[in-house]
């Protein structure tokens, strides 16, 4: 778990501008940093400070107006939509605030998705194991609408880890959950992250959650205003 020389994620002079009325608005302004493999990084800031935008750019879900993102040494600007999707499939796992499970698929099928997309022949058995690990071994055939919020987020976590990602990105993973459930989900996520040595990038405004990470990046009005290493 010692940081190596080559960063897993590197952002350089990232800027994202949107058109607001007649004038351009910078929602992300000249942000640069690097994340070493195995680190857990919390991105914090007030609402509208650009946290989720930054996460989207890091994951290649959106394109920066200026600047560049490197994931595992690969510059995202050189990749088209399909190549970026393929990169995510190999390297990234996702956990969203509102779970974002596919409503048409059962819990098991949702977890199987990334495995199947990668052409894994043992997708079903691996997905079943993952559901057991998040404590949902008996709910494999349930549809998302039949699960509670905490259960849905656990399915989402199983889905995120099932593809054996190097990098896990989480956007307010406990934001839609009550305190107790949120804490359970957070425990689960940090435990799995620890067990698998995954690099974690976590967007949150929950300071307790942020304090469980090894590093904290603070955003304000789209600018990086703080970078603390936590013990």
């Amino acid at each position: 778990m010692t940081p190596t020389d080559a960063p897993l994620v590197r952002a350089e002079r990232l800027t994202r501008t949107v058109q607001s009325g007649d004038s351009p608005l910078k929602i992300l302004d000249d942000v640069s940093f690097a994340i070493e493999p195995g680190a857990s990084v919390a991105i914090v800031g007030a609402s509208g400070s650009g946290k989720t935008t930054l996460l989207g750019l890091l994951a290649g879900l959106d394109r920066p107006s200026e600047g560049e993102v490197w994931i595992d040494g690969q510059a995202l600007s050189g990749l088209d939509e399909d190549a970026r999707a393929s990169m995510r499939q190999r390297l990234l796992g996702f956990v969203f605030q509102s779970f974002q499970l596919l409503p048409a698929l059962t819990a098991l099928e949702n977890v199987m998705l990334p495995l199947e997309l990668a052409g894994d022949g043992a997708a079903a058995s691996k997905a079943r194991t993952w559901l057991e690990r998040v404590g949902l071994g008996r709910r494999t055939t349930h549809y998302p609408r039949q699960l509670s919020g905490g259960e849905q987020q656990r399915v989402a976590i199983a889905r995120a880890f099932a593809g054996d990602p190097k990098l896990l990105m989480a956007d307010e993973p406990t934001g839609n959950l009550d305190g107790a459930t949120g804490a359970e989900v957070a425990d689960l996520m940090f435990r799995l992250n620890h067990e698998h040595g995954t690099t974690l990038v976590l967007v949150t405004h929950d300071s307790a959650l942020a304090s469980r990470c090894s590093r904290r990046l603070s955003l304000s009005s789209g600018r990086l205003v703080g970078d603390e290493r936590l013990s």
Partner: protein
Amino acid sequence: MLARDWRSGELTVLAAALVLAVGSMGTVAFFADRVKTALTSQAGLLLGADAMISSDRPLPDSFAKAARARGLESMPALRFSSMVQKAGGDAAPVLANVKAVSDGYPLRGAILLADGAHPDGVRATRSPARGEAWPDERLAQRLGVSPGDRLTVGEATLVVGPVIRQEPEVMTGIMSSGPRLLINHDDLAATNLLQPGNRATWRLMVAEPTGRKTLADFVQAVAAELKAGQRIESVRDVQPEIRQTLDRAEQFLGLSALVAVILAAVAVALTSSRYLRRHLDTAAMLRCLGASEARTLALFATQFAVLGLVASAAGVVLALGGQALLGSVLASLAQADLPPPSAAPGLAAFATGVLLLFGFALPPLLALANVPPLRVLRRDLPRPRPSAILAYALGAAVIGVLIAWQAQDVRTGAIVVAGVAGLILVAAFAAWLLIVVLKRLPQRGVTWRFGLANLRRRPLASSLQVGALALGLMALLLLTVVRGELMRNWRASLPPDAPNHFVINVLPDQVDGVRAAMRSIGDPEVDLYPMVRGRLVKVNGAPLDTRQFEDPRSRRLAEREFNLSTSDSLPSTNRVTAGAFWRPDAKPDAGLSMEDGIAGNLRLKLGDEVTFDIAGTPVSARITSLRKVDWDSFRPNFFTLFPPGALDGMPTSWIGAVRLPEGAKAGAWVSALLQQYPNVLAIDVGDTIRQIQSIMDQVSRAVEFVFLFTLLGGLLVLQAAIAATQDERRFDAAILRTIGASSRQLSAAQVAEFLVLGALAGVLAAGGATAIGWALADRVFTIPYSPSAWVWGYGVIGGTVVVALAGWIGTRNTARQPPLAVIRQLG
């Protein structure tokens, strides 16, 4: 808020559905209305007028006054039989039908004059002047006269004018045909022929100028005033053949309009339920900000009302443009000029648009107003659903009203409605079955799993989608393949080898000779049929009182002599509708068989005993069967048939029909026949057949044009059905992109889903179209129907390809948008 929604593009889909719905329906209605009017006046050409009052005594002035009072054109005419002779010679006189007409004759159609250079004749620009007589070709030939000669009619000597090739009135009964002579009304007195005892028919011909709608009222008013010996005929009364043709034309056009209505309803229903889903947050926010449920409802309802009015008006404008385009395209094809559009179809289409929006948007609107304000905070709250009972009841009521209104004919409407309802039930069942099967099948690969998962996600929504797609496809099939077959079968019922000459008045000892002559030139199977004239005098022993029939047509049918015949078997162009036809070895007392239409008019039932007076001898028999007669066949058909031997000893003449080749050969054959059997009459009905064929051609073309617009409606439904789930697809696609699906994988999953959807809808549509086509052929058009396998080929393959293609086009953008934006927008 309407403007805001419009700018954001939220309403464009719904508005487009509405504009196209009203536009395509309005075009159908406008055009059908114009074509119907044109067809009626086309048929009016055969009568020379739109309506005609006839009497065996001079007509009172009151009828002409009544016509003038309603802004109708009218002119008197008189018809009688007289010997006509070439003046200044000893040539034999010829018995001719003389018609005395005024300037401006005919009110409808034209007199065509013989002209060596033009085989079809040239249009006369005037009618006979005073002192002039215009013979038809047969009379001119038989009298041996040409223009400039003189001939005598009664005491008058007239100069021969142009020779007539054809004049209106070919349809007023084949039995009254004979050589004709047209003279000026003012020369009547000089002939001194109208003495008491000379049989003549006084007529008042009436035509409705364009734009007036008073003819029906006039016909009704006159019918109420008719005295004994007077009658009024409009185009439809003239001949069963024409009536049947016009009725079918209306049915075809009505069917197209009906399908357009259903498609419009489905499209609006699909788009308004999508609107509901997209506006939940707005509604929740309004409620959250303190708007009451009523206020929220009022806000959305006003928005919808404005949208409905504007879109419907735009639809009517589109319809006017569409039908004008149609009219100009068809004008070069149609013989008759299309009358200008009337306002009624426009108002109807406009009202339909508003009604559709109301019927299908109200339930989602009520649900929208009901949205819990908490949704602002908790987006995962269950969506409010429109009250199912209200939604279905209202939708069904609106569809019912529109169909009752459009179909005009209860039977066609009922068949189409039953077909649609059946299709939806079958679609729901088939979708449910599919979902059961899908759950059991081993599912390999993300493509099929994900594609099919969308179908089983919500059984109800899937079955509705299959139903809507099947409905759209069925409409397309019904209007392409099935319509084509119906038209073909209809035309086949008037075969190109239909007889064009009737041979009548054949005496019993001439039958063998005439039959041999007919077989030598025409079909070797052709035959002659015995015909006995008799008057219906008693029903179930009680004397027939014709005054009981208020309908003038029924009274006339009851008063005139029936043509009775005998047959050992059911004629090939007849079909038994009640009772049973006798066996070939039946005894003469096996009853009689009546045509079901006339039985209905005269209120006769199976089992009634009817008595005919045949030359003073009463002949009684029970009705043992009722028959439907295919008048299109142009073969001798009889209202009343007896078993062989039942009419033995009665004064009998024989009648037959034969197809003669066109041209001089036919004339030579007729001359030879008449030379050998001077009493026999050979009547040329080729003109009538040509007229009917021309009406059929026009109907066929009109339906094809109208069909293009219904086709648009069908495509709109397809598009709306796909768009209805567009948002869900975009969202799912964004999630899949996020976790690493390639665009190829996304497309494959969506195409898989649409393939299954399209194939299933295609099977259902083909089944539905076949069933409806059969029902229409059998129950409405009463023509034989042989469904072709093409319906299934087109339905399944076409449905699969079209739906998969439309699905791919409709969703291909989903893979192009950055996933984050989609998730934020829809998540």
